[in-house]
């Protein structure tokens, strides 16, 4: 995963926008200089019932050619945001821009945005070819032109010879490909995908992730992708916007999201993490010392710049913790082994540390003499791997 994310950083430098919580000022400057964003959300709010906001003050720029994923649990506002962009839901407040034009009052069929739906929404009474020809017929293209484009679209998703079939006669993966081809056949600048892989089994899902990713790279089309599957988000996207409670919690590259979460929610939602609750005892130069309830002091990165005395939640990734740590580790704590789970390439060790009995460590190399349940050991980690986040 790290390698993929790193490659992405190399390949697509500077594809970023003004974000609520971007941690890299260099990216931000680049976008300011280079106004190539295709989509812009400006203070967008959405309410269905007039009582609560589903989307709260959304500001988001999506660059041309970018693969942006909206990731979040159900009810976080990500699908609503997508529906507003597609034009199926009006924004309650704020403005959405597409290619420099405000589109709040543009009906969906005039926006020219391709869309892949959950469960594909292929028209069941039409053949594959008729499905693909639909957007072209609507646009009054010539018959020969339509035929050529449909054939090219079928080639693109490797479904040659399937043109006469009905969607009901196709497998889930094939339907998915047709849906992607249909969203791309009229060459839109922007394609929206609403959990398109949700109905597929795991193996097919992984294969389709790569197919969609490769199509995106080949066609250079802008993709806004909605999912609740973090693996999907991390493997496919240039940038990921993590949604929770109607707010973008963090908008950054996959690697940054994993390595440097800026809120406790993101740390919890993406990957595994161990948490401690405590109070900031001292803070200096971006680092701080946090006092836990049992009196232990832990050095951490003060992500939010919390003041001395404020409550905080510490987050440490399981693979950043060492058993029998080297002398360079800033934080060393005693622990008791509670449970050992063998997982082939690594071992999951559940420990009881400083009152937290759910502390998990991933051990790739067992210490000499092995580990046993009930054994008392020492664990440690670097201050830079431990992040002091908001406490909620």
């Amino acid at each position, binding site marked *: 995963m790290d390698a993929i994310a790193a490659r992405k950083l190399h390949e697509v430098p500077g594809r970023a926008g003004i974000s609520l919580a971007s941690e890299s000022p260099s990216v931000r400057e680049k976008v300011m200089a280079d106004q190539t964003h295709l989509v812009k959300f400006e203070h967008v709010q959405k309410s269905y019932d007039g009582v609560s906001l589903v989307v709260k003050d959304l500001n988001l720029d999506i660059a041309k050619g970018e693969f942006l994923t909206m990731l979040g649990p159900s009810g976080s506002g990500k699908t609503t945001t997508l529906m507003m962009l*597609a*034009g*199926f839901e009006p924004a309650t407040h704020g403005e959405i821009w597409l290619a420099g034009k405000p589109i709040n009052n543009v*009906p*969906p*069929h*005039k*926006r*020219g*945005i*391709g*869309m892949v*739906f*959950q*469960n594909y*929404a*292929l*028209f*069941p*009474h039409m053949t594959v070819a008729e499905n693909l020809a*639909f*957007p072209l017929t*609507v*646009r009054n293209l010539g018959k020969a032109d339509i035929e050529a484009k449909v054939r090219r679209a079928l080639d693109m998703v490797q479904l040659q010879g399937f043109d006469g079939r009905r969607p009901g006669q196709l497998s889930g993966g094939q339907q998915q490909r047709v849906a992607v081809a*249909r*969203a791309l056949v*009229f060459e839109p600048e922007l394609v*929206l995908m609403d959990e398109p892989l949700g109905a597929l089994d795991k193996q097919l899902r992984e294969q389709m992730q790569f197919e969609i990713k490769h199509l995106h790279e080949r066609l250079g089309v802008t993709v806004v992708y909605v999912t609740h599957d973090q693996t999907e988000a991390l493997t496919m996207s240039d940038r990921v916007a993590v949604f929770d409670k109607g707010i973008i919690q963090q908008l950054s590259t996959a690697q940054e999201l994993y390595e440097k979460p800026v809120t406790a929610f993101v740390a919890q939602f993406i990957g595994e993490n161990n948490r401690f609750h405590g109070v900031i005892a001292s803070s200096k130069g971006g680092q701080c010392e946090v006092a836990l309830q049992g009196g232990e002091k832990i050095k951490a990165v003060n992500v939010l710049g919390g003041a001395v005395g404020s409550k905080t939640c510490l987050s440490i990734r399981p693979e950043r913790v060492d058993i029998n740590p080297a002398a360079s580790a800033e934080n060393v704590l005693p622990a008791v082994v509670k449970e050992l789970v063998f997982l082939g390439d690594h071992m999951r060790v559940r420990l009881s540390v400083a009152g937290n009995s759910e502390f998990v460590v991933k051990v790739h190399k067992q210490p000499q003499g092995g580990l046993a349940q009930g054994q008392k050991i020492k664990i440690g980690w670097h201050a830079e791997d431990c992040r002091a986040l908001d406490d909620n």
Partner: protein
Amino acid sequence: MNMSSDTIMRAADGTPLKAKLAQSLRREQLRAMALIAPLLIFILASFLLPILMMLKNAVYDPDLQDTLPRTSALLATWDGKALPEEPVFEAFAAELKAAQKERNAALIGKRLNYELPAMKSKVTVTARKLEAVQQGPWKEALTTIDPVWGDIETWATVKHASSTFTPFYLLSALDLRQTAEGAITAAPAERQIYRQIIMRTFLISTLVTVLTLLLGFPVAYFISMLPPHQANLLLVFILLPFWTSLLVRTTAWSILFQDGGVITQFLHVSGITWLLNALGLLHGEPALFKTRLATVIAMTHIQLPFTLLPIYSVMKTISPNYMRAARSLGATPVYAFIKVYLPQTLPGIAAGCLLTFILSLGYYITPALVGGPTDSMIAGFIDTSMNNEGNWGKASALGAILFTATLVLYYVYNRLVGIDKLKLG
């Protein structure tokens, strides 16, 4: 487990596995049969058997065969070109006399009357007068009593009416008749009524079906778009009429439609009557009661849920994503509706319309209570044939035609849409 050289698989107790399997399944089958038996017997006795008897009655006609066995045997070899010979007259006279003694002569008259006007009285009179005649020649005696017996057509009628199975009722229900030579021709114009009745029945049913579709489709669409609790409330309103007897609803309509009734008065008070008069569309007060308009309105009201509910149940299953997909692909709302939404509702439309059309074909009470005197539908005529004329043959023939029309409709529907796609909810 002793798997010996024996090639037959055996169960644990040594019986062959196949026999054992059949035995265990038989028990299950018997249990299933026992469960469905009460309903099966009920349907056989109350539904299938009457239908079969009705179909048989439409062609089974033993009256003349029973009362005139010798005459019909002699007539069987008659070529129908000239008047029959004396033996036929002799046999007929003898059998008519016998029938008169057993008070069966009226039966012969009634049967012949179906095909030849005034035969009922002619046969009764002949039978009475014949009592006084003791000796032949019978040809002369009969023709003297009534010249009708000197008519070839009379004997042709007696000939084909005296076979046990006759196409007469079915043919006459289609305004056809068989000549003495056995050829099938159209009935004389003054006796042609059934084709008109059948056409009228189909016309009214079509009208009602189209109206329920036009009224029901938008409502079904509207309800299918509502959140569940509101949709359920509206569905209760649609189902409410189901909980009231058909007779009560029809009677209610007849009260509403009456001259000087609620509707007429409303039209009068609201000025619509005046307006229609001023426009020349109406002269005086509107007459609604006992008109075809009243029949169609009342039937549409009663049939509306039957058309609406299958359409609704299909619409409910159509994901809103189809319309969204069509819109995102560039279709206007109207185009998306026609090309994407409407075709997907077709199974529901077909089911609803078929149901309403078939039920409408059999309407009887409503046209009788609110419809015009010349607007009887086929079911009304079946009733008249049976209860007023005692003509079970004709009633059965009309029923058989209605039954066949329904089967044909099902067949056509199956070919066009597929019966497996029929969705009633």
